């Protein structure tokens, strides 16, 4: 780190000094650049390239590299040929694209709409709306799907029982493609919200004011100025939510299976859960998924790099708040309807499931029969010593992941977006790779890659944290990049001209301005780490059990009651921790803007 103050590609010539000093400084700077890039590449090699190579090796062979050794490999494309020739894989791929594409479109409408309502309008109770609009993010997909199946299953859903009680013939059917699209859209809208709210909050309103002065209507300003200006945030949120949806197992497993709608993740899970498991075939399907998402990542890079999105410059401003007049009650109404549909109803369904002995509810009168309710699921949950241990482990691993991942992602994000170092393109590509790999498959690749390492990493919390850092690095970097891209270079240049070195500039200028983004990214990482199931499955041991794995154990054991009870505990825990991070983030925004001025 000694050389870093002069490294990182700052192309500012020293203002004073002799020719030799300048030469020495240039050599030091070059060495520093080289060391920095090499250091990042070594870290990425360990975290990403090595496990991904194991995955590719798995796809090209039918062996377990740890068990069979490297000498016995018989490389062939057989797995790919088998998978590509299977019409059911084609169907699963098409279903995945339709469900996730539709879900993403809905997520953008909801997420963007809410971020605009919260940040740029005078809708009442905005703080409350902002807090609860993030709640779906904390609910594990498996639990979200279970909650919605309780509500809207065509045969026994509570909403349908209610409709039947009212004499209405129409029925909700969540076991369908439109059902899956709605649930995806609703639960992944917070990804879009997090990106766009942050961008809207940090946006210079000058262009909007100009549009207003030029006679543009509020709607036309919104559509032609505001949203295009925050396009990187919208595209990042959209891309991230699409990719995350592609890798989700819980929702299509619970909602798609009864409706006979296979998707790629449910197909991959089947391959890994069979006895004997077909990991090599699963790895081949995962490579197909990687190709699809890799293409999308490339597309996003093209779109973002083609335009300038600098909206945070060296002057103070406060984003304009639009006076909606009486319409502000309409936007509040929209928010309330959203809350009821997205948060209140599923939470109620979970509460009913967690406190009710059994979920057989034929009539609405039975729903309110107090004799059917008890604390038995909570008692059984905490009777299991693993429950408490898993909570402690999960918080520990979440915090380690958020801190290490946050620092590493900031270093990578800064290198990619704010420097001209050679090797930064490779760093960009490598750090984006894990986004495309489903957790179910990469989990076993981490096991294969890291179990043999000396030093006793296996069996500790650290192996889980490292897997999560690697797996969610692209998400964290994307979240940070939005903030980094918006900071004008003039601010850093001003600091360099004033004699501040690179680290000082980062500490005094970049970090304070990007602080909301950094905290949002670390919060996102924390949430993702706490919910992550796929890559935990092979890395946890009896002493490092995490909540997501125990939750799956209960679900697989067929006890929706305990699953719901544990989900409520997890949700409350996350809510408290996220609320804390939200307060930090808000403080950061104020400070950041103040300092920029």
């Amino acid at each position, binding site marked *: 780190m000694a050389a870093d103050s002069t490294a990182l590609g700052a192309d500012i010539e020293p203002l004073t000094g002799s020719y030799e000093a300048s030469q020495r400084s240039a050599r030091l700077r070059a060495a520093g650049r080289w060391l920095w890039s090499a250091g990042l590449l070594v870290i990425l090699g360990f975290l990403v390239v090595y496990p991904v190579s194991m995955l590719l090796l798995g796809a090209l062979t039918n062996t*377990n590299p*740890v*068990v069979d050794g490297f000498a016995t490999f018989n490389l062939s494309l057989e797995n790919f040929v088998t998978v590509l020739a*299977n019409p*059911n894989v084609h*169907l699963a791929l098409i279903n995945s694209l339709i469900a996730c594409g539709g879900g993403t479109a809905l997520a953008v409408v909801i997420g963007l709409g809410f971020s605009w309502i919260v940040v740029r309008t005078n809708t009442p109770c905005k703080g409350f709306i902002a807090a609860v609009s993030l709640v779906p993010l904390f609910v594990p997909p498996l639990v979200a799907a279970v909650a919605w199946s*309780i509500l809207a*299953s065509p*045969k*026994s859903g509570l909403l349908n029982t209610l409709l039947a009680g009212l004499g209405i013939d129409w029925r909700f059917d969540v076991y369908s493609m439109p059902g899956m699209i709605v649930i995806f859209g609703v639960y992944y809208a917070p990804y879009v919200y997090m990106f766009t709210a942050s961008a809207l909050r940090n946006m210079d309103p000058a262009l909007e004011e100009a549009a207003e002065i030029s006679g543009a209507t509020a709607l036309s300003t919104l559509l032609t100025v505001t949203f295009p200006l925050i396009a990187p945030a919208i595209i990042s949120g959209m891309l991230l939510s699409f990719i995350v949806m592609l890798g989700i197992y819980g929702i299509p*497993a*619970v909602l798609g*299976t*009864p409706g*006979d709608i*296979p998707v790629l993740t449910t197909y991959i899970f*089947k391959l*890994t*859960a*069979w*006895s*004997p*498991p077909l*990991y090599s075939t699963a790895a081949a399907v995962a490579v197909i998924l990687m190709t699809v998402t890799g293409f999308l990542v490339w597309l996003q890079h093209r779109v973002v790099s083609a335009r300038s999105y600098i909206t945070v410059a060296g002057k103070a401003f406060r984003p304009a708040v639009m006076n909606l007049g009486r319409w502000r009650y309409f936007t509040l109404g929209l928010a309330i309807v959203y809350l009821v549909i997205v948060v209140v109803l599923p939470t109620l369904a979970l509460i009913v499931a967690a406190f009710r*002995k*059994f*979920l*057989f*509810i*034929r009539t609405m009168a039975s729903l309110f029969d107090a004799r059917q309710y008890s604390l*038995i699921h909570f008692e*059984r949950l905490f*009777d*299991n010593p*693993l429950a408490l241990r898993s909570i402690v482990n999960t918080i520990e691993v979440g915090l380690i992941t958020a801190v290490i991942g946050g620092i590493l992602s900031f270093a990578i994000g800064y290198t990619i977006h704010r420097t001209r170092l050679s090797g930064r393109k490779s760093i960009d590509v490598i750090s984006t790779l894990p986004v495309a790999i489903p957790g179910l498959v990469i989990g*076993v690749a981490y*096991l*294969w890659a890291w*179990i*043999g390492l000396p030093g006793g990493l*296996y*069996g500790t919390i650290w192996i889980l944290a490292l897997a999560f850092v690697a797996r969610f690095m692209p998400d964290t970097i994307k979240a940070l990049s939005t903030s980094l891209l918006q900071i004008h270079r003039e601010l850093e240049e001003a600091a360099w001209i004033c004699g501040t070195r690179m680290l000082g500039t980062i500490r005094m200028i970049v970090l304070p301005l990007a602080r909301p983004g950094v905290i949002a990214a670390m919060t996102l990482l924390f949430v993702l780490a706490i919910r992550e199931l796929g890559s935990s*499955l*092979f890395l*946890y*041991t*009896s*002493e490092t*059990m995490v909540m997501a794995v*125990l939750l799956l*154990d*209960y*679900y*697989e*054991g*067929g*006890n*929706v009651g*305990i699953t719901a009870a544990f989900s409520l505990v997890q949700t409350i825990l996350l809510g408290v921790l996220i609320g804390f991070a939200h307060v930090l983030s808000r403080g950061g925004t104020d400070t950041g803007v103040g300092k920029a001025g």
Partner: protein
Amino acid sequence: MTRTHLTRRQFTTAAAASVATAALGARGAAAQEYGPAELIDAAKKEGKIVYYTADFTEPEQEIIKAFNKRFPFVRVEMVRAPGGQLITRIKTEAAANKLLADVVNHSDRGLMKDIADLFQDYRPPNADAYRDDVQVSPQLWPKTTLGWSIAYNTELEQKPPRSWMDLCKAEYGPKKIGQVIAPSGGTTWTRIMFERQTFGDDYWKKQAATQPVLYPSGAPTADALVRGEVSIGVLLYNIAYMKKRDGAPLEIIFPSDGVPLNYYAAGVTKAAANPNAAKLFLNWCMSEEGQAFHIKELGYLTALKKPPFNPPGYDPAVIKTWAPNFEQYQSLRDAWIDEWNKTYGYRQ
């Protein structure tokens, strides 16, 4: 008074002697049933085991709790995973010399036979009381035995099916029967193998005509049955039993035309860091007390020649039990599952 005094003394002495005899007897019985005193002392010193299982968390937790009532000094740390994932973990850990498990309990005897050399020689004290035909390797023992049953929601089904053949009747369709897909694992493969070998090659076709709802595993099937998504569920008895025990509106029957059984394979690993505690745990699970607990409280069956207890409606003298021929279990698997998938329209 003297007489009374003497009587009291005699009584006290006799009582003390009885208690001592009973205690010694109990200790002797314990030694006989759960292992010698040296094993128990050594297990006490080890104080814990790491237990890998493919069975579900909730029943395993209850088994551990019952074991700890008798042996509170052994802490059981459990790792639970579905069969395929558990085998991958064991193989990889073993290859890296980092196998953490002291005891493994797996539902797929075929896969366990492949890794039998990872297990040490072990025989429970009551080894001779077990059926000889269900062991796939001398090191591996049938700690867990599961039986297939037909369960129904009593609120929805007034005329339940009583046999496997009844499940082919049109009155139980469409979408009334919930069942687990054939490729889900060893237990379901056992059931569909039984169906075809017992009722003929066209059984699947007749049953599929009722358009059953297919689920990926027993858990969502049982959940759907309790919630009323389906009114009949083809389920492992223990899955339905625990729900019924807790008050769910379910009734369970053992079909009159046969009960397919699935035996687990359990053993103590060679790498065990706590071999004595591991053996004590398995000894208790395999003991008559342990097996009776499995059956009575959790709805399992047993591989003991003389079951200590039979679940309601299960009389081995009347009901025909069925266990697969192990060679056929291995050799027919892929082709038959493929055929089942086609017959039931399950997309693989």
